[in-house]
C-alpha cells in the first residue's frame, strides 16, 4: 500500500443541473488498498465513484495507472481495466456462468482461459454449484455473489463497489461481508467501496474517505477517522451527536481543561487553547451507582448526573443523562443496564477518560452541516 496511486483525481468537479455534486481537490487510491467512501446520503459518494470509474463525465483530471483519462476512449480503457458492482446485481439474461463470463468476453477472453477464469471466480465466491442456474432462480444474496464474481473474474486493477450490501438481509450480508474481507485481503486489487454503513466500513476499510456535500472532509486510517473525527459533520455522522460548547485552557503536560460556557469543566487531552466544541461518544461513558475511586486510574472526569431516559439502541441501551445544563449519553449493554437498575430520575456517576473527550476547534464552517 505504498507508491504512486493507481487511480488519482485532481480538482475533480461534477456539476449537474447547475448543482455541484462533487468537488474534490485531490483523491488517490493505491494498489491493493481497500478504500471506503463514507458519508451520509447525498454526500456525492456514488457520483464520485462513477466519475472515477469513467461512468460519469467530470471536470478536472483523472489519472489511471499514471495516464490521464480524458476522452471516451480513455474512459473505455479505464472501464476495461476495472470492474464495478452496484447495489442491485444487474445480471444479464443468461446463466450464472454466462454472467461471470460476460466481462471476460467483452475483454476478448475465449476458450480454456475463459473457462478457467470463470471457474476460479465462481469458486472464490462459493457459487460453483449455481453455475448453470438462470438469474430468476437466484436469491438476492446469490445474485450479488454472481455480480461480485463477474467483477473479480476479469482480474481488475480496481473494483468499484457501490453499496453492494444495501439490499441484502442481515445474515446474508454478514456472510458476504466476511467472505469479502478474506477475498480482498488475499487479492492485490485496489477496492473503492461506497457505503454509509459504519459496521461495513470498519469491517473492510484500510482507509476511509469521508465525504459531505460532495467534498472530502476527512481522510485517514479507518480507526483514526472513527476515533478522531476531524469535524463536527463527521462526528455527528458517527453518532457523536451531543455537543458541549466552551473553550480550552491550561493546556500542559498532555492534558488541558475544557471549560464549558456555564463555568464547569472537564479534563481532556492536550489541545490548542481557544474556543472549542467537545463531544463524547456514548461508548466511552461508564456509569456507577456510587462515586468511583478514580485515583491512579485514567478516569479523569467523574460527573454526578441524573438519568433522564433509558431507551433501546439495537441490542444495547442508550441512557440519556443530565449534567448541569448539559446532556450526555451513555451506551450500556442490556445486562449492565439491568444490573445497575438504571431508571429515569436516578442519580448516578458518569466517568469519562480525558482521551475520550474529542475536542474540535469551534468554527462556523461545518456547524450548519450538522
Amino acid at each position: 500500500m505504498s507508491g504512486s496511486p493507481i487511480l488519482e483525481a485532481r480538482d475533480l468537479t461534477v456539476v449537474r443541473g447547475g448543482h455541484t455534486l462533487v468537488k474534490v481537490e485531490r483523491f488517490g487510491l493505491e494498489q491493493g488498498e481497500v478504500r471506503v467512501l463514507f458519508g451520509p446520503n447525498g454526500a456525492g459518494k456514488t457520483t464520485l465513484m462513477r466519475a472515477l470509474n469513467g461512468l460519469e463525465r467530470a471536470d478536472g483530471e483523472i489519472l489511471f495507472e499514471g495516464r490521464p483519462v480524458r476522452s471516451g476512449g480513455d474512459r473505455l480503457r479505464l472501464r476495461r481495466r476495472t470492474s464495478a458492482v452496484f447495489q442491485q446485481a444487474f445480471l444479464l439474461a443468461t446463466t450464472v456462468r454466462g454472467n461471470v463470463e460476460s466481462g471476460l468476453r467483452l475483454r476478448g477472453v475465449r476458450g480454456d482461459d475463459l473457462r478457467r477464469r470463470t471457474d476460479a471466480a465462481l469458486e472464490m465466491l462459493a457459487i460453483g454449484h449455481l453455475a448453470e442456474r438462470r438469474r430468476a432462480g437466484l436469491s438476492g444474496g446469490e445474485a450479488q455473489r454472481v455480480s461480485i464474481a463477474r467483477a473479480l473474474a476479469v482480474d481488475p486493477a480496481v473494483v468499484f463497489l457501490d453499496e453492494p450490501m444495501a439490499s441484502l438481509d442481515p445474515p446474508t450480508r454478514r456472510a458476504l461481508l466476511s467472505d469479502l474481507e478474506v477475498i480482498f485481503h488475499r487479492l492485490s486489487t485496489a477496492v473503492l467501496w461506497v457505503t454509509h454503513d459504519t459496521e461495513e466500513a470498519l469491517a473492510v476499510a484500510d482507509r476511509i474517505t469521508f465525504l459531505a456535500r460532495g467534498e472530502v472532509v476527512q481522510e485517514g486510517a479507518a480507526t483514526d477517522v472513527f476515533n478522531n473525527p476531524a469535524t463536527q459533520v463527521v462526528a455527528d455522522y458517527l453518532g457523536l451527536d451531543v455537543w458541549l460548547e466552551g473553550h480550552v485552557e491550561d493546556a500542559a503536560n498532555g492534558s488541558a481543561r475544557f471549560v464549558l460556557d456555564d463555568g464547569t469543566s472537564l479534563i481532556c487531552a492536550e489541545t490548542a487553547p481557544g474556543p472549542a466544541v467537545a463531544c463524547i461518544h456514548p461508548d466511552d461513558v461508564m456509569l456507577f451507582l456510587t462515586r468511583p475511586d478514580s485515583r491512579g486510574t485514567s478516569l479523569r472526569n467523574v460527573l454526578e448526573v441524573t438519568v433522564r431516559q433509558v431507551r433501546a439502541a439495537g441490542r444495547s441501551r442508550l441512557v440519556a443523562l443530565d449534567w448541569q445544563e448539559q446532556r450526555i449519553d451513555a451506551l450500556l449493554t442490556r445486562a449492565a443496564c439491568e444490573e445497575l437498575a438504571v431508571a429515569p430520575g436516578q442519580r448516578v456517576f458518569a466517568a469519562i477518560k480525558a482521551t475520550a473527550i474529542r475536542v474540535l476547534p469551534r468554527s462556523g464552517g461545518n456547524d450548519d452541516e450538522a
Partner: protein
Amino acid sequence: MNFILQGFYEAMRLLFTGDSATYEIALRSLEVSAVALAVSLVLGVPAGTAIALAHFPGRRLVVAVINTGMGVPPVVVGLIVALFLWRTGPLGSLGLMYTLQAMIIAQVLIALPIVAGLSLAALQQLDQGFRLQIMALGAGRWRTFLLLIREIRVPLMAAVMAAFGGVISEVGAVLMVGGNIVGQTQVLTTGIVTDVSMGLFASAVALAVVLMILSFTTNYAMTIIQQHGSKSRT
C-alpha cells in the same frame, strides 16, 4: 347468403389450386410489408434507444411526436407521402409515385413510430443502473446497445408484431401512393377493396383468407420467438 358460401368455396379453390394471381398478390404484400418492417427496425430501434438514453433539450417534444406518430391514421401518412412524391412535389423528380418503393416508404412511416416508441418505452422501464453495469463490464457503445436490446427483446418483439400488424393490414396509404395497379402495386388489402367494389366476392374472400393466414402465421412465429425470449430472459 349463398354467395358468401360460394365465395368461401371459390377462395379455397383459388388457394389450393395454387392460383398464380392470388399468390402473386400475397407475395407482393409480404415483400412490401417485410421490407418496410426491416427498414423500420433498422432505423427505429437505434432511434428509440438513443432517445431513451440521451438527455437533450426538447427530448419530451420528440417523445410526444413519436407517440403521436404511433396513432396517425395511415391515410394521412399516404397523403403526406403522395404530396412529396407527386410529379410536381418536392421529390417528384424521383419518379417513385405508384411504385412499390412509394408503398414501402409509406409503410415505413407508419411502422417507424411504433418500433421507435415501443423500444423507447421498453428501455425507459429498464433500470438506468443496468446500462451503467453493462458499460462497467467494459462494453463500448455498440456492445452496450446490443446487450440492452437483448435485455428488452420480449417487449421489442411485441413492437415488431404491432408494427407488422399495422402495415400488413393497412390499405389507405398503399392505395394512395401505390395506385392499386393490377400486377404491379396491388396488394392483398387493396385487392380486396377492388374486388368488393366490382362484386367479385369470391376473389375478395380468397384474398382476405390469405391475408388472415399470412398475418396469423407470421404473428404465430413471432410469438414463439417472443415466448422463447421470455423464458430465457429470466
